Structures are given as structure tokens and as C-alpha cells.
């Protein structure tokens, strides 16, 4: 027994996970401190095995993870040092093994549990133990402890510390100079956390540890509503069809605490640094060919001349991007007028009267591809803003030309939600849409049976169903002002026509994507608002999207917006 004690004592003495000084100060009466060594005291008293012996190990936390650990007949810390580390178990709330490994490999861990575990083991095996890992890699131990930030904000010299979190734990979580709580992350204010939860301050609880073990789960972060807005998390959850994003812990784990933005004051790394989606390819000299396509119908001279001069200006400043422009005429009686503005070689007139927006763009895309690398469909009552086309090309390339992209609409962008950092969105507006040749070749164009409104939603959903992503490029600006619609309208007839077209398009969409109950609602609205006659027949789509696909992609949960909104 004595030799076993010596053996275990030796393990503890050699491990930074057992901080003798900290242990004695925390758990022993003064008069007992000098009597026996900390290791002996600890090993002989079973009730102390569940204590925190340092910032790296907490016995209670460790054994809570699993029943086999609860049944240990020897100190859990010994188990962790000899076996648990190599089994990728978590030693304390302050040490997040998954987060450490993802930083080391510089990517997210796989979702599959088996693969994830295998990867963690392979990484952990490269180090002697958790202290060796932290010391060698200098990685942050958990999502709310940033080594560099911790040292800067608390005026500590980072170079003098082997492992900053050891300092944090060993010196108490309060600054020795002024008693202020030590801050550990730009994402979250410990002082405010204690301010809002006075019970913790009174109990002298470590706020970081409490937050990681209880606070997140108890939604105490929600007190900090100047940092996190619930609607941001809700919108993110909706966008990615994953309710787990509503939970702070999951949000932090997916975003590695620096990706997506959770609220107006939630510090993102992209507050001060350029997002790679915009800086990649910025200096690229790779040539590309873009066709701008516009569908015309009863457009005024001023708006068309403005569009043309903005394209000419863009062309003037685009070094490596060749810009071609084409126009499809739906009101053929005005063809000569359009030719006088754009030139005969750029104008294509419909052979069947007004075939609609989507069909017009389809005709233009047929002309544009395969010669063009990209097609940029734009509305005739808008104009390009500086470097719009170049920005779209670079952005598309950054995402491997596997996205349907919406340009940023000015003066105010489309109100639908998009991820502020990853740029995913539910659908792409037809007012300014950009796609690569490969996507068009795979998915085709718009549904020719939808004359106007919702054809862009349908197209977006088909693109998504085919495996591509839908994104907004906030730095590619296209001016298209629809704000006058938001003021009180003097022209009810115009508004009524627009609403009818919108509902007809939405009805077609709902039937096509097999949401019959939604389609019935749209139909009833058309009748109730005297936009169609009761029992009037509406043509149904000839082809339906299979329910298995529709269930994955279509979202009729936001009325006619088809997406959560940021505003309006």
C-alpha cells in the first residue's frame, strides 16, 4: 500500500495538473498545511478527490462525464493523467478538448462521432499530456479564454507565461492590484456577468468556470442583451434549419466563438480584419468574361441611359474582367428605341410577345453561355456601383464558383436575413443575381411558367436542391431603389396589380413545391381581396418537385417573404 502511495504521489508531483500550493491554500486549514505534503493529504482523503487541483483538472467535473469514472476506486486525477487524457476525456470545464483540437488542425471537427473521436486521439497522442499540449501549441484552452486578449487586457506579459490559464487559476480570478475581475475574452465581459449575477460574486465563484458549466446552459448570457440578440440566434437557426443555433453553447461551438455574429455588440474577428471572401483574389490577374443581362419592358430613357453609363464606367475600370451586356425586349414595339440606346448587336427581341422576366433571362443566358464564365442578371431600373462586377467574380471564385450570388442592393439591401459572416441566405433576388456557367449548365434557368414574382425563389430553391449555396455579396453594390413602395401609396391600382402578381407567383410556387395547404391559403387571399373571381381556375405547374426534395429545401414559414427578415 505504501509503495502504491509513493507511486501515485510521484505521478502527482510530476504533473502540473496537481498544483500543491493551490490545493493547500484552497482546501486545508492553516495549521495542517505544513504537517504533510499536499499530495499525501490529497491521496489519503477520498472526499478531496472531487476537488479542483489546478486550472487544468476538476475531479467532480471529470467524474461527472461518465459512470465508469464515478466508480473509480482511486483518485480521478490519476486516471486522467495515466489514461483519461489519451482517451480524449475532458479534465475540467476550462479545458475544451474539441476546441483545442480544432484549433490545432485549423478546421472544424467531423460531425460523425467515431471520426471525431479518432481524430482527437490522433492529435492528443502527439503530446505527453494536456499541459504539454497547451504549452507547446499555445492554443486557447476554451472558447471564452483568449490567451492573447487575457494578457493584453490584464497587463500581463504573455511571453513570461507557459500557459496563461494556469496563471488565471493560480492567482485567483481577481487582479491583485485592484481586485477587478480578470477578463478573459473580448466576446464576453466577466465583470458584467458578475454584476448581473451578484449571487456568484458573493460566493466568490470563478465566473468563467460558472459560465462554462452552468451559465450558458441556464441562459444567463441572455442577461447580456447588449451583446447577444436573441433574434440573431433565431435567424441563424432558421437559415441553417438547425434549432441548435438558438442555444449559446452550440452557437459558440459552431462559430468557434469568432465567426458568426450573435448580436450588435458581439465582437467578430471581421470587425477589424477583412473577410477572406473579399480579400481572396483581390490581386488576382485571372481573366474572366461576364455577361450582364437585362430584361426590358416599358422602361424610360433616363433609367436605361443611367444603366448603360454605369456599365460603361464599370467596363472602363475592369482590368481583368471582360464585360459584355445584352438586353431582351419583351415589349417589341419599343425595340427601335432600345436599339438607339444600346446598339443593335446587343438587343434580342422576343418572338412571342411578352414572355416574362424569367424566360427573358433564360434567353439571354442561352446567348451568354458557353462563351461567358458568368452571367449577371440585373434590373433595368438600376445601375452598377463601382467595382460591382469585379467583386462578384472574386466572391464567386472564393466559394469555388458553387454559389448563386445576390449583389448588395442600394440604397438599402433586401431585408431578408443573411449570415453576416458566411453570407448564406434563403433565396437570391432576381433584381441582381450572379451565377457561374457550371451552375447554369447543371440547374438550367428560371421556370418559364412563372411570369413574374417568385420565379427567383423557385430558381434559388432548385439551385440549393442541386447542392449549390445561396449567398449575398455585401461588397458588390447594385443600385435598385424600391423604397418608394414603403411610403403611403397614391396609386392603389398599381399596388393591387403588384399584389395580384405576387400572389399568383406564390400560388404557383406552393403547388410546384407540394405545399398544397399553403397554395390554398394564397388562393383564398386572392379571392378575399377581389384579385381573382371566386372559383377562378389558375393554371397549375406541369411538373412538381418531389416531396423528399421539397421537404429539405422549400420554406413557406415566412409568408410572402420566404425568409426571416432583418427589418421591414
Amino acid at each position, binding site marked *: 500500500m505504501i509503495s502504491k502511495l509513493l507511486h501515485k504521489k510521484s505521478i502527482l508531483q510530476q504533473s502540473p495538473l496537481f498544483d500543491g500550493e493551490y490545493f493547500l491554500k484552497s482546501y486545508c486549514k492553516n495549521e495542517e498545511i505544513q504537517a504533510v505534503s499536499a499530495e499525501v493529504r490529497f491521496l489519503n482523503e477520498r472526499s478531496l478527490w472531487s476537488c479542483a487541483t489546478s486550472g487544468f483538472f476538476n475531479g467532480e467535473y471529470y467524474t461527472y462525464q461518465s459512470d465508469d469514472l464515478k466508480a473509480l476506486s482511486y483518485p480521478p486525477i490519476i486516471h486522467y493523467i495515466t489514461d483519461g487524457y489519451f482517451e480524449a476525456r475532458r479534465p475540467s470545464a476550462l479545458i475544451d478538448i474539441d476546441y483545442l483540437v480544432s484549433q490545432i488542425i485549423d478546421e472544424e471537427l467531423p460531425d460523425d462521432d467515431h471520426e471525431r473521436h479518432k481524430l482527437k486521439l490522433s492529435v492528443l497522442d502527439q503530446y505527453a499530456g494536456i499541459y504539454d499540449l497547451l504549452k507547446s501549441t499555445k492554443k486557447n484552452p476554451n472558447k471564452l479564454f483568449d490567451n492573447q486578449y487575457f494578457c493584453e487586457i490584464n497587463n500581463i506579459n504573455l511571453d513570461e507565461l507557459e500557459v496563461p490559464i494556469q496563471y488565471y487559476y493560480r492567482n485567483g480570478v481577481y487582479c491583485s492590484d485592484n481586485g477587478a475581475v480578470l477578463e478573459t475574452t473580448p466576446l464576453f465581459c466577466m465583470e458584467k456577468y458578475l454584476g448581473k449575477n451578484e449571487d456568484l460574486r458573493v460566493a466568490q465563484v470563478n465566473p468563467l468556470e460558472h459560465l462554462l458549466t452552468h451559465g450558458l446552459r441556464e441562459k444567463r448570457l441572455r442577461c447580456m442583451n447588449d451583446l447577444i440578440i436573441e433574434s440573431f440566434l433565431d435567424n441563424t437557426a432558421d437559415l441553417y434549419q438547425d434549432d441548435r443555433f438558438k442555444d449559446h453553447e452550440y452557437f459558440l461551438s459552431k462559430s468557434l466563438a469568432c465567426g458568426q455574429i450573435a448580436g*450588435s*455588440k458581439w465582437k467578430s474577428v471581421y470587425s477589424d480584419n477583412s473577410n477572406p471572401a473579399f480579400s481572396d483574389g483581390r490581386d488576382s490577374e485571372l481573366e474572366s468574361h461576364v455577361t450582364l443581362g437585362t430584361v426590358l419592358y416599358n422602361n424610360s430613357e433616363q433609367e436605361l441611359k*443611367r444603366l448603360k453609363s454605369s456599365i460603361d464606367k464599370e467596363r472602363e475600370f475592369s482590368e481583368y474582367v471582360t464585360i459584355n451586356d445584352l438586353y431582351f425586349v419583351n415589349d417589341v414595339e419599343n425595340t427601335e428605341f432600345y436599339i438607339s440606346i444600346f446598339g443593335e448587336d446587343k438587343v434580342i427581341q422576343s418572338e412571342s410577345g411578352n414572355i416574362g422576366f424569367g424566360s427573358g433571362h433564360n434567353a439571354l443566358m442561352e446567348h451568354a453561355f458557353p462563351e461567358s464564365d458568368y452571367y449577371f442578371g440585373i434590373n433595368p431600373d438600376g445601375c452598377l456601383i463601382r467595382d460591382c462586377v469585379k467583386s462578384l467574380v472574386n466572391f464567386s471564385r472564393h466559394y469555388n464558383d458553387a454559389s448563386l450570388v445576390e449583389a448588395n442592393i*442600394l440604397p438599402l439591401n433586401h431585408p431578408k436575413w443573411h449570415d453576416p459572416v458566411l453570407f448564406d441566405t434563403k433565396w437570391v433576388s432576381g433584381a441582381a443575381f450572379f451565377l457561374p456557367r457550371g451552375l447554369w449548365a447543371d440547374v438550367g434557368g428560371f421556370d418559364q411558367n412563372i411570369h413574374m414574382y417568385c420565379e427567383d425563389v423557385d430558381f434559388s430553391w432548385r439551385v440549393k436542391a442541386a447542392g449549390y449555396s445561396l449567398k449575398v455579396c*455585401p461588397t458588390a453594390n447594385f*443600385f435598385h431603389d424600391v423604397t418608394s413602395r414603403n*411610403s*403611403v401609396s397614391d396609386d392603389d391600382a398599381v399596388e393591387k396589380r403588384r399584389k395580384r402578381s405576387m400572389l399568383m407567383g406564390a400560388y404557383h410556387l406552393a403547388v410546384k413545391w407540394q405545399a398544397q395547404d399553403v397554395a390554398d391559403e394564397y388562393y383564398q387571399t386572392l379571392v378575399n381581396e377581389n384579385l381573382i373571381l371566386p372559383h377562378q381556375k389558375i393554371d397549375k405547374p406541369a411538373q412538381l418537385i418531389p416531396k423528399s426534395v421539397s421537404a429539405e429545401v422549400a420554406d413557406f414559414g415566412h409568408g410572402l417573404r420566404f425568409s426571416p427578415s*432583418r427589418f421591414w
Partner: protein
Amino acid sequence: MNVSCVVRFHDSNSVAYLERALHSLHTQTEVSVKPIIVLQRFSNAEVAKIESVLSRNWYFPEHQPPEIINFQDDSNCDARSKLMNLGMNCHLESGNSFLGFLDYDDFLYSHAYATLTKTLIEKNAAVAFARVELAKVIPLKDYDFVYDMSKPYSGKNKLDLLRDNFCPLHSYLIRTDLIDQSLLFFRENMTRVEDYEFLIRLIGQNPCDFSNLNKFIGCYVMRSDGTNTTPWSAECGDVESKTSIWAENVKLLNMYKSSTEVKFYASDF
């Protein structure tokens, strides 16, 4: 209709915001706009940068050539009122009849000036007002993420405006050929609420029109990091200094208010 718009600009690192404001002027419909960019103590290189921005972004033939005025002196005092006065003088020299203002970090909708000029002509008013919306944004390095829009500015008429300022700088347009042009100045001893003091003097003597308050013609942008060009912006130093500057100027405002005569016209309500 020829409209001058005075745009104050003092931070050469915020050119992207100036560009956004210029886009919003460039795309105004049914009017011809002359942007008058007034700079505060810019170096030659900084002025050249602004000229380059204008050259790249201002080219529709229906608009008037822009003006750049670079205010220089040896002090480093806040020159915001001085900049406005320089801009207004330039407007008077241009011969344009309509004068508007736009802070460089806000923007107008394309129908703003068409709406207001039409009203000024039809109603024979001197100042026409519409509404602006409030856009709350998160300023990221590459762009501003708009996360909320609201309509916080209430107020219905001249009386409400005299009680409290519910009209941001870019929510109104002045028909300068109808007014006593000696009113067109900002008090240079005021560095806060100088725009409100100007407005009170202007509306006090002239018929106004508020019939477009049901229309939104632009946005006031509020950044979540607190760097707005308000008395509370980061550049102003600590909270105590900001508060005392604000209080001093409010005192001045109240003093001027008590000696400002006000006339009421039927169109004011």
C-alpha cells in the same frame, strides 16, 4: 430643377461612407444635383483622394459638376459650422434654387429630392420636410450589416419642431430663392445642435410644408460601435467632456431661441 447638397466630411478613413452618400445623390431622379463636399483641413493627398472618388462615382450627365472646398486654418477647433457656411456660400454662387444637406455617413433614397422640390414648387413653401428612417448597423471591416430599421422620428408640424428637433439634416429641402438669404448661416460659436438652431431661425420666418411626413426619403445610420457623428462619438473624448460640451451648446441654443421670432402659416400644420 437644380439642387445643391452640402456634404461635410472630416475623416479621410471613412471614404466608403462618403461614397455611399454620393451614390445616393448621384441616383436622385428628376433633378440635377450639385454635391458640395466641404472638407476639414485635408492634406493635398487627401483632397486628391476625394477628387478621385468623385471622378469614379459622379458621371451622369444630367447632374452638375461637384465642388470640393477644403477649409484650412491654423487652429484645430471644431469647424463643423464653418464648413456648412462655406458650403452654403458655394450654393448661393451656383445659382441653384434648392439647398439640401447630407451627413457623409447617411444617405437618401432616389426619390428624395424629386418629392421635396415638387412640394416646394406646388405649395410655394420655403422649407419642405419628409421623414427619414433609422438604420441600425453593425460596422464590419468590409461593410455595414443592417440589423434593424425603425421610424423613431415623430412630430407633425412647425410647433412640434419648435419644441424638439425631429427633423434630421437630410430630411428637408430649402428653396433659397424664396427666403431672406441672410438667414443662411450656421453659428460658428456652436459645435453641437448648431443644425437645430439654424432650422429654428429658418422656419421661424418662412412658410413650411409638412405634407410629406408620410413619406420616407432616406436613412439616418446608427452604428452599434458608437462611432456615429453625434455629440457622443468616440472622437469627442471622455464622457464628462462630451456632456459638458453638449450642455454648453444647449445653453446657447436656449438663449438664441428666446430671441427668435416665429411666424405661423397655414401650411405649417
